């Protein structure tokens, strides 16, 4: 028994010692280091190749890549506790807007502080129209939430629009949709005959909301709801669903890398913007701004598109998009920006106001 006690105490001592060491390692980035936070997986990998490595070899600054699963929870907690350890964070634009309004992120003067295009165009003119929606946010990529379907599901027939997703007779089978009102309400209205440009006007009325939910009612029995982006390609691959919504990059890797028999339905795609923000209370503010300027220049954004099928947010990067670094596929036709006219941009302001209410109503609707 004594021996057990000794071993336990021994390992405890080791545990506490390693704790002390790791405690230091997880605190704020040291001088000459930066904590850069992103979504993990293939996306972070593409950023490390395109931004982090070249930056480190140019400046010698070490970059600690941290993964998170999105949302403002961690950043709000860090800000409230006055203990900000994340310097640069990759966020979706709606979170950037909210966080900026609440003072979590540093405002950025896009023309003064960010790089010009190679031809001298100021940055504010070089970023795609409609992407500069928050003064704290520098856009990196355009991605889209888009439908894909199993090519072998219905012999001879091919869905061509969102209407077909809601047409159970012509295209029977399960639909894998995200468990969220965002995008689904828009698609329901689109399928119900509302023109692209009018969607948010209609959605802003009580009748419009009822109409969207009523349209969703028609397919509710045939929906599998997903919550993680990795799931819909799996559901289609396992033949559990015939249609699925998902991020275009995930569909790209399923189709191009795993050779799954899926096709894209670009019609009705919802474009969204993802980019960097800098914590207002970052302890390495100068270094963070230097990294931001480097990572968001024309060359870096074009480089990232070599590794993942998300469209660069700068106009000047567009023509530089070339072939996939490993697969050798021409990337341009896989960019959501190539089909921008078939889809629409999420109305972030509308969702900022209505997300609380709509999510509650959506949850209540699911329970019915």
């Amino acid at each position: 028994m004594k021996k057990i006690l000794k071993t336990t105490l021994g390992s405890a001592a080791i545990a506490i010692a390693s704790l002390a060491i790791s405690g230091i390692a997880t605190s704020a980035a040291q001088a000459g280091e930066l904590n850069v936070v992103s979504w993990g997986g293939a996306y972070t990998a593409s950023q490390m190749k395109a931004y982090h490595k070249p930056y480190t070899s140019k400046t010698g600054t070490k970059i600690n890549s941290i993964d998170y699963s999105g949302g403002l929870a961690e950043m709000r907690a860090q800000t409230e506790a006055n203990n900000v350890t994340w310097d640069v964070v990759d966020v979706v634009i709606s979170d950037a807007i909210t966080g900026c309004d609440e003072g979590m992120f540093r405002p950025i003067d896009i023309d003064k502080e960010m790089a010009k295009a190679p031809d001298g165009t100021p940055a504010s003119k070089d970023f795609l129209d409609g992407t500069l929606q928050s003064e704290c946010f520098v856009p990196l990529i355009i991605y889209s939430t888009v439908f894909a379907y199993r090519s072998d599901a219905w012999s001879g027939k091919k869905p061509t629009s969102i209407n077909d997703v809601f047409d159970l007779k012509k295209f029977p089978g399960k639909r894998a949709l995200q468990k969220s009102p965002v995008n689904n309400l828009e698609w329901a209205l689109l399928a119900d005959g509302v023109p692209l440009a009018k969607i948010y006007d209609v959605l802003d009325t009580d009748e419009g909301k009822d109409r969207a939910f009523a349209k969703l009612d028609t397919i509710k029995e045939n929906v599998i709801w997903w919550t993680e982006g990795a799931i819909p390609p799996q559901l289609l691959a396992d033949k559990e669903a015939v249609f699925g919504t998902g991020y275009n990059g995930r569909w790209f890797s399923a189709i191009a890398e795993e050779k799954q028999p899926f096709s894209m339905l670009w019609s009705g795609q919802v474009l969204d913007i993802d980019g960097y923000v800098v914590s207002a209370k970052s302890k390495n503010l100068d270094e963070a701004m230097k990294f931001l300027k480097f990572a968001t220049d024309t060359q870096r954004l074009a480089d990232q598109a070599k590794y993942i099928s998300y469209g660069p947010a700068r106009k000047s990067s567009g023509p530089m998009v070339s072939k996939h670094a490993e697969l050798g596929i021409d990337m341009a036709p896989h960019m959501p920006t190539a089909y921008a006219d078939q889809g629409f941009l999420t109305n972030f302001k509308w969702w900022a106001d209505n997300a609380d209410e709509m999510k509650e109503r959506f949850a209540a609707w699911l329970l019915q």
Partner: protein
Amino acid sequence: MPPPAYAGPVETTWYYGFRLICAFIFIFLITPILIIVPLSFNVEPYFTFTQGMLAFDPDAYSLRWYEDFISNTQWTHSVQNSFIIAIAATVLATVLGTLAALGLSNANMPYRALTMGLLISPMIVPLIISAAGMYFFYSNIGLDQTYLGIILAHTALGTPFVVITVTATLVGFDHSLTRASANLGAGPTTTFFKITMPLILPGVISGALFAFITSFDEVVVVLFLAGFEQRTIPRQMWSGIREQISPTILAVATILVMISIALLATLELLRRRGERMRGISPG
């Protein structure tokens, strides 16, 4: 065991029928845990038995998911985290809990029931509420996303088990032994280490095991308090289940089942030893 000889046909039917029902319930309890063991050796990335596995074709079995587990730094890092956190929390919980149990078992302890209630409250409050409270409070004081925060949280969750098991051991504790020791001139420290400690040790160790498994198995608090850096094994399994189901999770699960069998065996040995030492049972 056959039914008693005097049983009539109705009794015999009932006798076997009852045992059959019980057998089904036992199967329900144990099958899910046993089934993952062979499945974790599946060569295919499926969660079910393949034709080859059923035919005991050696080619249908492989160690690839175990290799995947060992070679994946996220998994190995989570193993390291789980042990660091669980051991630190266990040591803290055991020391604090044992001291408190000694105090609580003192007949002169004031407000005994109330104190006991407060001390074991972390066991009663649903985890999601503990996690919510700790998340709000710890992030206010900058303890979220740190090892220290998770260790403190797990210590709090583990102490009730130590308090309960050690208190239970002390119920059968013969206090005249410590008085005798004191009479013979031993100081309180000597008495504690020479007399009290050896006698309550089985209780302390089984309490420590409970505290260890509580921390080792805990995921709700980790889900809210841990950053990416502090991910533990259950946290890693959680995201594995939600995002990308691969049989690597089954390999991890199999290893964890082995660990629980070891813990169970240790506890059983302790229990027997404790009973023997207190002369309750002969064997």
